[in-house]
């Protein structure tokens, strides 16, 4: 079978095609015929050796997101059966409960082989069944960006109908946040540097779009758009460079879920105290959150925003497209 490997991790050029024997069926594992995979920003970091401890072998298969069909199961597998359409939680061992750092030990596309392959042997406890209305390409976008957005909105943010949700930018987490928030009766504000992208997210249901290039004090624009109340939940997908404005834009008792980079800017946190706001570090989520999120996706018939689909053999082009930041929603690869 064909796979992609991360090679020497010196940048996009390191991505290399390889051929391997078919995976064997082992205890507790399912063999998945991969039908589609999806890229995340961190895949660009991994291929450039800028993510985590950077001790990955050259033969590591990348990508933490994908979807496929179970074609074989090992001994002791009870949760899925042959023929099931499934996705996997990014942290394969994080099935329930609170975060522990050891979960990085089984992280698809980082510390264990990921989805850039024709067939994947996956720990069955990490798998979840996908709703019928989703195509393979749509389902492939769920696991990391979708679960991250769900974690911020629900377990962390306790979203209620009528809340205002602010999402920064039009990347995967923000667009998933938009769609899940709308399904829950919330009002959604999205920022972008492009009016064209804002028009697209409005078509997906965003109530208000703010161009942060033409409105640099977008935090004030959020307050104006909410009659001074601010956003109840913020998907802070950018990092410390935007955090001061995110706190300014937050409501009293606001919940700010932080997933972005933490290396730029000098955030002013005083507003957290004045507003009794909560700032939370978010590391994707557990399988329970994935299952809950899929229930919402199925009930609301959410169609994930797939920006562009590449062929499996064009994997490097998919990476290059993601790096160009021209996308809205997810960059997907088809595997057949």
């Amino acid at each position: 079978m064909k796979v992609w490997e991360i090679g020497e991790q010196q940048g996009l050029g390191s991505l290399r095609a390889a051929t391997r024997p078919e995976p064997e069926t082992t205890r507790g594992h399912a063999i998945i015929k991969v039908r589609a995979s999806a890229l995340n920003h961190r895949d660009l970091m991994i291929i450039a050796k800028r993510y985590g401890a950077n001790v990955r072998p050259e033969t590591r298969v990348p990508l933490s997101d994908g979807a496929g069909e179970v074609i074989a199961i090992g001994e002791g597998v009870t949760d899925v059966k042959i023929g099931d359409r499934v996705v996997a939680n990014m942290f394969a061992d994080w099935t329930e409960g609170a975060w522990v750092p050891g979960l990085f030990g089984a992280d698809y596309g980082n510390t264990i082989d990921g989805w850039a392959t024709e067939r994947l042997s996956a720990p069955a406890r990490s798998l979840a069944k996908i709703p019928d209305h989703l195509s393979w390409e749509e389902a492939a976008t769920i696991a990391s960006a979708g679960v991250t957005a769900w974690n911020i909105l629900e377990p962390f943010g306790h979203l209620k109908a009528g809340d205002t949700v602010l999402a920064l930018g039009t990347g995967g987490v923000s667009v998933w946040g938009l769609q899940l928030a709308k399904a829950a009766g919330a009002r959604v504000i999205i920022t972008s540097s492009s009016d064209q992208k804002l028009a697209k997210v409005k078509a997906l249901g965003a109530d208000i779009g703010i161009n942060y290039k033409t409105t640099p004090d977008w935090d004030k624009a959020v307050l104006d758009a909410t009659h001074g109340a601010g956003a109840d939940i913020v998907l802070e997908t950018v990092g410390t460079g935007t955090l001061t404005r995110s706190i300014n834009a937050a409501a009293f008792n606001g919940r700010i879920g932080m997933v972005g980079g933490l290396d730029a800017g000098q955030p002013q946190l005083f507003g957290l105290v004045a507003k009794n706001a909560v700032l939370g570090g978010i590391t994707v989520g557990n399988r329970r959150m994935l299952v809950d999120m899929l229930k919402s996706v199925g009930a609301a018939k959410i169609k994930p925003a797939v920006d562009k689909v590449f062929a499996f053999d064009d994997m490097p082009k998919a990476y290059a497209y993601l790096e160009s930041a021209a996308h809205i929603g997810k960059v997907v690869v088809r595997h057949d």
Partner: protein
Amino acid sequence: MKTWELGDQKGIASLRMAERAEPKPGPGQAVIAVKACSLNRRDIGIAGGTYGAAKPATRIPLSDGAGDVVAIGPDVTGVKVGDRVTASHYTTWLDGTFDPSVRNADLGVSIDGWLTERAVIPAAALVPIPDKMSYAEAAALPVAAVTAWSVIEGLGRIKSGDIVLTLGTGGVSIFALQIAKMNGARAAITSSSDEKLARCKDLGADIVVNYKTRPDWDKAIRDQTGGRGVDIVVETGGFATLSQSLAACAPNARVGMIGALAGRPEAPPALFPMVGNNITLKGITSGTRRMFVELLKAMDATDMKPVIDKTFAFDDAVNAYQYMVDSDFIGKIVVSVG
């Protein structure tokens, strides 16, 4: 009756004694014969004119107090004459999430407080005192103990076996230590004084670190927790200590920043551990009446006694303020009234 007033708020010396007519309760109000009050750090700022906008010169100071109900106005149903009571200092924040409007009815700040022989308090904010608790003990609680409870229970959802870190030995910190212990948690506390740390050990502290001799106190705490770090931080040190507090955190830690003590950071705090460890940081502006009721129930059940450093007479209230500024106190400073 005798009462203290803020005066022109140029410092502690501005506090002045005045004679007033006995107050009569309006609708929804109770008159309390005050038996004891206590001081908080913010009272120094209020007396010095540095805590929010200037207050009327006749404002009666202090957010914390306790006494007996001696009269009730029309439409008061929750208390009766003779009840022993204290009160939630945000008198309109009875339950639920924070609303900035609660600052409009804050005892000793935006409405008259407790440093008087007879106080007029909105009856809805009153909280009955357990029988075995003294007035001085009850008067020690409203701001500092409820703040500690708000971080540890409201935000932190403490479980037995958790580790709670608090910084310094002021009112909030000592209550944090005691509330942690009553919940079956381990308590870690820092101070610049070995003598104070010894006192904290007597109060049940499991891990004590002198931050003068161990400037890397976050590492010291991590070492003493087997490398795991702490589950809840009652961040009384403000933004200046936040980077080290975050570095001392276990995965999924809950960190409560105490409003009045936060100050402004000289350097931006290092937030890096927050994402990797799924840490939650929340601003805490004291707590609700419901939290106060829960706290009193817990104190009654576990026989927890507030640590009162020193008690001053009503006529010597200025000296109580000065003692808070000058001394190395532990826990609370109380004024006895009547």
